């Protein structure tokens, strides 16, 4: 027992000596000068590294275009977005009789549609139907897409978006991709898994060509 204590004291003393050794004036095994030198070294070394890294990052950023990303190969096609946002994966469960179970969905839809209301979009351009809306700049404008185009889904007539009638409306939005010029008429097909029919608004799910292409956040207001 005493032996153990002694060795513990010994190691404690050793640690104290390592922490500060009064004879050699070493702190953590180094003298003040040594610490100074090593810190200076790391300051210079790491400072240089940091500067060099910043410089290369800056040089890399110089090669980029502000308006269009350098490469667009990773998003060859636009993704589709579904509203209301599903909680998990792409499944909705709600009970018709319990409004609180679909309350969130409705809120989500309303929030989404807010920016598509007529008032919000009145500054936007009315574009020609059926042709790509190509612009040469310097000012790029966005086409109007008012919520009345969604007909029944717009929620104007049905504040519950059909959820209370077992006919939930689901909005599908197409992702913005710079320079996407579809050929023919892009359309979204909605198919039901079972016998129930799904009715699509925007006739046959066709998205008018006038909404393409997109010229990037910086140029193109939305």
């Amino acid at each position, binding site marked *: 027992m005493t032996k153990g204590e002694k060795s513990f004291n010994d190691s404690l003393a050793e640690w104290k000596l390592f922490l500060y050794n009064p004879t050699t004036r070493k702190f953590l095994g180094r003298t003040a000068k040594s610490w100074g030198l090593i810190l200076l070294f790391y300051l210079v070394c790491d400072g240089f590294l940091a500067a060099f890294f910043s410089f290369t990052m800056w040089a890399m950023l110089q090669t980029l275009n502000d308006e269009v990303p350098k490469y667009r190969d990773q998003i060859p096609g636009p993704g*589709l977005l579904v509203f209301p946002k599903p909680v998990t994966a792409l499944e909705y469960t709600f009970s018709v009789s319990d409004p609180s179970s679909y309350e969130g969905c409705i809120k989500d839809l309303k929030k989404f549609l807010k920016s598509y209301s007529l008032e919000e979009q009145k500054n936007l351009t009315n574009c020609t139907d059926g042709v790509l809306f190509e612009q040469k700049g310097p000012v790029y404008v966005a086409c109007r897409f008012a919520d009345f185009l969604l007909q029944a889904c717009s929620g104007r007539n049905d504040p519950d978006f059909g959820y209370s009638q077992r006919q939930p409306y689901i909005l599908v939005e197409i992702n913005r991709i710079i320079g996407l010029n579809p050929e023919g008429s892009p359309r979204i097909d909605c198919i039901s898994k079972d016998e129930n029919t799904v009715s699509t608004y925007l006739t046959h799910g066709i998205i008018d060509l006038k909404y393409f292409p997109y010229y990037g956040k910086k140029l193109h207001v939305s």
Partner: protein
Amino acid sequence: MSRKTLEIYSVELDGTKDTKQTDQEDDKKYNDLDLKKSHQKEELKRELDLDDHKLTSEELEQKYGTNIITGLSSARAAEHLARDGPNTLSPPKQTPEIIKFLKQMVGGFSILLWIGAVLCWIAYGIQYVNDKSASLDSVYLGVVLALVVILTGIFAYYQEAKSTNIMASFSKMIPQEALVIRDSEKKVIPAEQLVVGDIVEIKGGDQIPADIRLLSSQGCKVDNSSLTGESEPQPRSAEFTHENPLETKNIGFYSTTCLEGTATGVVINTGDRTVIGRIASLASGVGSEKTPIATEIEHFVHIVAGVAVSVGLLFFIIAVSLKYQVLDSIIFLIGIIVANVPEGLLATVTVTLSLTAKRMAKKNCLVKNLEAVETLGSTSIICSDKTGTLTQNRMAVAHLWFDNQIFMADTSENQLNQAFDQSSGTWASLSKIIALCNRAEFRPGQENIPIMKKVVVGDASETALLKFSEVILGDVMEIRKRNRKVAEIPFNSTNKFQLSIHETEDPEDKHFLVVMKGAPERILERCSTIMINGQEQPLGKSNATAFHTAYMELGGLGERVLGFCHLYLPEDEFPESYPFDVDAMNFPTSNLCFVGLLSMIDPPRSTVPDAVAKCRSAGIKVIMVTGDHPITAKAVAKSVGVISASSETVEDIARRCSIAVEQVNKRDARAAVVTGMELKDMAPEQLDEILANYSEIVFARTSPQQKLIIVEGCQRQDAVVAVTGDGVNDSPALKKADIGIAMGIAGSDAAKNAADMVLLDDNFASIVTGVEEGRLIFDNLKKTIAYTLTKNIAELCPFLIYIIVGLPLPIGTITLLFIDLGTDIIPSIALAYEKAESDIMNRKPRHKKKDRLVNHQLAIYSYLHIGLMQALGAFLVYFTVYAQQGFWPTSLINLRVRWEKDELNDVEDSYGQEWTRYQRKYLEWTGYTAFFVGIMVQQIADLIIRKTRRNSIFQQGLFRNKVIWVGIASQIIIALILSYGLGSVTALSFTMLR
């Protein structure tokens, strides 16, 4: 006390006790044996109190209940057999193969990786319970980790399985059959059925079937080399000649060979109780020392594992406190551990070692235990045998004395350069005596073989003389034919001379020539004249003094001296038809004419002095351990440089200053010759003092057993000790040594098995080559480890940044494994082919406790300097990929949560584009691949940096190591295959880069 320290192999063999023991006591004894297992070694070191050699035949009969004429009865023999068990050596307890295999599976980093893999699966399990569609990523990762462990484990197991089993050779030595007398009948029975008390007969060519006490013998000689390492045939008879059972002539030992003659003896010990059985169990009882490289690697594993676990836990805590989910934090933890552990390194080290082992095998060093490759490099003391290792293991004529002059002969391996004056008439006579008075002959059918390589029938000295005269005179057989031998007295120990009578080659000359050789003083006694410059002169006092001076001088060189004389018989007294009768000695054997002296020695190998000098400049102490006489040992030591020309022993100083040995200041002497007798009286402290204070030490007259004491003494000095040996008795010392080196030609199988390395050419110089390779491998391993550790920071940083800054994950765990086990493996092996930088043989051997494989300089340089740069470089590549695709570096910060949400399909980049989950995942993989390539390219640069540690890259030569370039090419090719070929395999997470 003194005797007890000497006889370390002493065996507890008290026959009287054995016979008294009843069966019940036997049971007890076995239990005791188990209990005493730990004391086994100590017990074996006790005095060999075998006293059978002192007993008379009658006492033996009584003791063993046998009858010398009729033998044991079959019933009695069966009883003994049941009691003692069969006469075989019991194999040591083997570790089951499966245990060995499992040990490989949990050693080193494996345990860390197993934990990682299990955590992965647990994490998946939890995810799966919460959400059935959880991604399989962590399962893949777990499988990959487990695969890595299993594959490296199998690899290591395979390497270890190559190591051989020490007992295998002992069992091979067992004689198959023995001729015994039982029930008054001679029977041939399998040797393993021999029991104590059996009367056995042995004849020339047999292996002795058990330890036997000889009862009668007819010219029996045995070769005890398998026991003692000394191959000189030893006569065996029924007389008790020495107190020590190992030295007495009336005991024959199990497994030794009977060379000639016949003998009858009574079996006194069988199986494991024989002397050799005791040694065998001692050899397997001596734990082999952990090799220095194993210690180093363990040290390294501890450092890395310590860093991995502490960094992992630290960030686990940080992650949890940053409100990450525990499950996610566990995944981070795994990532950090995987990034920190150099998975491929241990396999690389094994491959590197085996490559060097192959290279050494080409240079005649066969390495059995891979790790021993490096041990040799850190060796600081070599305890070398003399015979066969430092010397050529044959006799050769070293000096001649005639015409009052000493001449030197060429003792090199081919002896072609015999430069001494051969014009004197004395030489003509001397050479004739040498050629004629010799019974050795070349075995026929060796016409095209160089003289030195021809096989000779005859003893060592006669062989030396035959070859010597063949080289100088030409065809000796032809000379002997021309000078027909008419009578001959072979050498015997009473006469101490050999004589033959020949016709002269001149057909006209009807004289007979008597030629005689033998112990110089005996020869001189028989001479009345001496030949000087071809003229016979009376043997005066001055001539006799000259003879004695020369004799003493040659003897002082440790050489075996022979005197030669001849006599032409007068024609009238000995006509052509004279019937010479060697038994009646009807011819003069005195008043001959003394011709000259000739001395022989086992000459040093010509490469040895150079090799010893190399060792010395490399800071390695060479200690010679031999059974030879101190004078011979010292002479050989001086001639090979084990004692350098300028050093003196205490005795030398005493002689030079004409003072008593006690008065000499021991500090003045650098060399010491210690005999076995002195060693036996020495306390360990005294031995330590000698080993520490003298730089040049020769141990002479040592029994091979004392080697173990010497080795232990050296190891107490913190030295890494290499020991050479060839006898069975050497095997404990070979095992005890840090590296045991057995002789490939002279060595017994047991020695080879106990050793870590076998010298195929028995040549000391090969050891030095081995040392060089060993040091090189240590240097190169340092490079390999530095190279491997560097990328750890680059692999670790992504996780840290990911956790703290919230970037999309820069590199996946599986991708990391592809760096560790894919692109980096071949380049790190390629570093093993790097040539030595400066002359590695000019620096001191590394201190096994101070010069570590991985020290903090290496770690800091790798981790903080190069590693940091590498991490920055890789991040640059990563940011570039994201920026070019639309995510500017600033937009990435804290993007992680949104980025990884599966249901978010519209994450907007800096340009306003919206990314679906799948697109983001794909971009993330592109990022992985880019980061991977970034590290890979920088590792190429790192590889070139690591080529050198001290020299500049231009001194070392950029293109000298071609394998490095193969490594670089492999790196690029593997990266290309991974990023372009396997891009479609989901689990690998690689994508094509543009």
